[in-house]
Structures are given as C-alpha cells and as structure tokens.
C-alpha cells in the first residue's frame, strides 16, 4: 500500500515536472506563433492578450508586399539564400563527417587522439569570437556578402560535430560486418555502401538535421558577413523589421514562423531516423 502510494506520488511529480519544463520550452514558441497572427498594437497591450482577438494574415501579407503601409521585405531572396546555404553546407559537412567519422572509427593513424581532441576543442570557441578575424579575412579575399563565404563558415562550424556523431555510429558497427562483406565478394567501397552506410544511416541523418538547423538558424556570423539580397539569410532578414524608433514585432513573428516551417517539415521527414539514431544500439548481429 505504502509503496504503491509512494510510486503514484512519484509518477505525478515526474509528470508535473515534465509539464513545467515543456511549458518553459514551448511558451516562447507559442507566443511567436500567436503573435504572427495579430496586429502589432496587441503585442504591447497591458495586460497581455494571449489569444489574438482578431486573428488574420495581415502580417504575412505585409511581408510579401501586399499592404500599403509597409515596404516589401525580399523574403523570397532570403529564403533562397538560406536554403542554398544551409543545404550546401550540410551536404558538405555530412560528406566530410562521413569520411572523417569512418576514418576515426576504423583506422589507426598517428596523432589520431590529438586530432580528435583538437576537433572537439574547436567547438569550445564561440563562433562570434571568430567573427572579426573571419570578417577581415573574408573581406581581403572577397567572400564578404557571398553565399560561398557563409557556406565555408558553416561547414567549419558543423564538421567537428558531424565527425563526432558519425564516428560514434560507425564505432558501434562491428568491423567484422564489413570484413564479412569483403570475404563475401565486396570491395571495401561496396562493403561500405551496402553494409556500413545503411547501418549508420540514422546517425548520418541525425547529424544532417543538426547541421542543417545550425546553418538555417545561425544569426550572429551571418549578420556580420552578409550585406544584401545576394547572401542575406532569413534570420538576418528578421532585422529588417527594426526601424530607427520602432520594431514591428508582429511582422518579425510572422517571418519567424516562415523560418520555422521548413525546419519543422524537415525534422518531421527525418524524425523516424532521428529517433532510431538517438536510441541506437539494437543493430548488433
């Protein structure tokens, strides 16, 4: 009796705590989404208005230039830039991550541990601390305000993480799998693509999602390295809503929703792999 009561209290407490945590995580996001559908005046109302009194799409219309009182923000250009930059940098980071992760997991070479540690330590430097040196170098070699400039920065930002994550996945695949495939008639390359790659797929997908989201959402470096519609990304575009004396919070929220949606869609598409990836371990032969 006593034990089961204690168990019940325990489970109620666990759920309560989870609920509070989820509220803390979700409320800002919910606020942004709600604000996207209300007029700017309502944002600053006291006491706060939670549910928009007259939800409408005016903010979105304004962003795309369908209103009288707002200059259109070049959303399609920002969107294209973001997409090109995030996808390209993710693809490159994954390619390097796969080769590097495989090498760290499977081969012995000199300075291996030092190299690995070095890669991880490079993540301890906040990206923003590097923004000035990068800015100076990029301006010398003409990479300021180019997509390529951002792509290189994001690849560098993501590679340590993708290598680390993918290395972990390859490490969990016994090397005998690839050896068995080689004895079975595969070249090393075939053994990789037919056996090891499919088994590490979920890990690679997880790494890809994280890399994509990092690039997609990055603001600090992008705001320093971009100038115009040639390379400005969506998060940088958010700043277009600040004028000298006013901030269009509602418009900004609408834009934030536009930024969130592709990331959500992608995450849903890959979530099966993501979950399998994060709870890896059931693969052992």
């Amino acid at each position: 009796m006593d034990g089961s009561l204690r168990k019940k209290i325990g489970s109620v407490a666990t759920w309560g705590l989870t609920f509070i945590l989820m509220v803390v995580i979700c409320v800002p996001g919910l606020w942004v989404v709600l604000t996207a559908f209300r007029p700017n005046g309502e944002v600053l109302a006291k006491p706060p208005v939670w549910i928009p009194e007259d939800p409408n799409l005016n903010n979105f219309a304004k962003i795309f230039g369908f209103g009288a009182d707002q200059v259109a923000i070049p959303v399609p250009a920002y969107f294209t830039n973001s997409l090109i930059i995030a996808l390209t940098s993710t693809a490159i980071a994954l390619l390097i991550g796969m080769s590097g992760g495989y090498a760290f997991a499977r081969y012995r070479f000199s300075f291996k541990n030092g190299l690995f540690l070095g890669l991880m330590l490079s993540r301890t430097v906040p990206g923003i601390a590097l923004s000035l040196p990068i800015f100076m170098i990029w301006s010398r070699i003409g990479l300021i305000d180019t997509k390529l400039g951002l792509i290189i920065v994001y690849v560098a930002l993501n590679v340590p993480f993708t290598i680390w994550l993918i290395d972990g996945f390859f490490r969990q695949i016994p090397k005998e799998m690839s050896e068995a495939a080689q004895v079975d008639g595969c070249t090393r390359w075939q053994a990789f693509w037919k056996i090891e790659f499919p088994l590490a797929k979920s890990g690679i997908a997880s790494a890809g999602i994280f890399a994509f989201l990092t690039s997609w959402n990055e603001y600090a470096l992008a705001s320093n390295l971009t100038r115009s519609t040639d390379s400005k990304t969506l998060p940088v575009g958010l700043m277009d809503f600040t004028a000298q004396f006013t901030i269009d919070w509602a418009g900004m929220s609408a834009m934030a929703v536009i930024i969130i949606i592709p990331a959500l869609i992608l995450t849903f598409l890959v979530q099966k792999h993501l979950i399998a990836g994060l709870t890896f371990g059931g693969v052992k032969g």
Partner: protein
Amino acid sequence: MAEISLKNVVKRYGKVEVVHGINLDIEHNEFVVLVGPSGCGKSTTLRMIAGLEDISDGTVSIGPEVVNDLPPRKRNISMVFQNYALYPHMSVRENLGFGLKIAKHPDDIVAERVNEAAEILGLGELMERAPAELSGGQRQRVAMGRAIVRHPEAFLFDEPLSNLDAKLRVQMRTEIKKLHQKVKTTVVYVTHDQVEAMTLADRIVVMKDGYIEQVGTPMEVFNHPVNTFVASFIGSPPMNLLNATIKGDQVVFSDGTALPVPTRLADLVRDGQEVVFGLRPDDLTPVGHGIAESGKNAKLTLKIALSELLGTETILYTSISGQEAQGKMFGPRNVEPGEVLEFEVAIEKVHLFDAVTGKSVRKQ
C-alpha cells in the same frame, strides 16, 4: 577445395612481431584446427589466410596460387566470425544470398543455392526473419549457411562456438563435423578450447606466443606431446607435470619417492638428468579403480586432499613429493578428504621431458 600453404609467415604490428614465421601445409578437404591460449596469434594467422590482415613476411598460397596480394574477395574463401557478423538490415534469405548477388549470379541460381544451404542447415522456417529475431544457435547456423552458399575453396572459422552456452556448443560442434562431411571442403578452424580441437580436427596445430608448437592428429598430439606446453594444454584434466631427477633406472622425486623409468625411454635418459615427469590423471588410479593393464604398474601410497565427483569417474586431488597431482577413480566410491589410498601408476604411459628445454624425451 584446395590446399592451403603457409611458408615462413610473419605478422608484425608496427615493431611488435606477433606471428614468428610459421610453416603449415593444409591438404585438400582437411579439417585443421589451430588451438592455443588466447593471444597466441591464431586469429591473426587465420585473418592473414582470409586476406583481412596484411602478411608482413612469407607467403600464403591457396591452391597453386600465392595470394599475398589478393584482397579477400579474390581468395574464394568464406569465413564464420565469432560474433557471426550477420547483416542486421537483411533477412536470413538476403544474408545467405548476399555473396552470390555481389558475384552477379542470376536470380534462379541464387535462389537454388540459398535453398540448398537452407536445407543443409535446417533454416527453412527462418528465411524471412531478421538476424535480431534469431537465437544464438540459429544465428550461428545462418553464419554457416552464408559460408557454404558460395561453394568456396575453404572455410575459415574463428571461434565460432564461443558465444554459445555449453549445451548448444556441444550440439553445434557435432553439426560442424557433419557439415564438413557433407560439403567436403578444406576447413581451418580456430579455437582456444582443446576439447573442440580434439573432437573436430583431422589435424591439430598447437600454437603458443606466435609459434607453432606441434602439428599432428588428435591422437598424436594427445599421446606424444612434444613438450610440456602441449602436454599441459591438450587433455582435460591436464597432465600432471612433476619435477624429478633420473638416478640409474629410476625417476626420483625430491622426497626420495622413486618410480621406474619407462623401458621405452631407458636408453634416452642419462644419470643425473633433471626431468619433468608427465603423467595423465587417467594413468594414476587407485588400485581396483583403474583402466590400465595391471602388472606393469608401479604402486604409490598417496593422501587425498579433495575429490571431485563427475559421475562415471571421480577426480582425486593429491600430491606426490609435495607437488600437486590429480588422479582418476573409475567406478568410483565415496572418498573422504584425508583418506590414504594405494595408487597404481601406469609406468609405460609416463612421459618424460627435459627440465631445461621442456622437450619430450623420445627417439629422434
């Protein structure tokens, strides 16, 4: 079906040499077992035959061809790994057919060979399952099936039974033996378990520290171990090895206990030689409870420290001249610790080894 030949094969990892120039000729259809303690270089040797490790020195041939520079896929061998290494994302059927598909055999040949292997190994019901849904013994069987579908020149096994429980291990041992009789192919089998080696092998290769200690049939290795290592490694419980000195035609222990030198070895030892006296527990039996022919036996009176019942026989722990020794009691009765029994020593079964070199005393 091919002979396999190793000539002065050396393996180095960096500067460390782990296999020191071994020579071995394996015949057509022969079942050869590499046996030795863990770390002695068995797997490394097998993997060099498979092409999964570079050969640092010497040559490996399969059939008439030196294969040193051929990748595994060109050696036409198949291998069963200790952890089976089944492909987890493929069904049993796909696992079996994988090698044939890679070799671009037409679908009907693949299906035919896969079914043939499935039949030999009794995999019928399991074909559509994933490896994760199989028991240890079934995985083992699939791994063997995957090895036989390609009709390779040779099978290589690396400790294939060590992940199974004791009962299944005995059962699979028999199946491997049957499989070999059915498919008649050269087999190189690695194990650290001397019982597996004895029961499976046509020829046993006993290895230690990267050297081959002895090659021979199970009977040869058991009955004529070339040195104290082989003597202690092969046979269970292991042979008693006791330090002694030759005095005239007697083997004398430090407390003065003396036994006659076996007549077959009388001319091969010299007076005063330090020897190791080797006696299998089967040849040290209480009077009336032995299997050796009586008559030629010497007698010893020994005190029992401990007895271990096995059913049809009992292992008796005792000591000879202060050195621990084990005897066997066939047709056992209860024996209490501290009891003193009269033992028969089957003198003609005694082995003598030189105490310095450890080598068996025998006609060269």
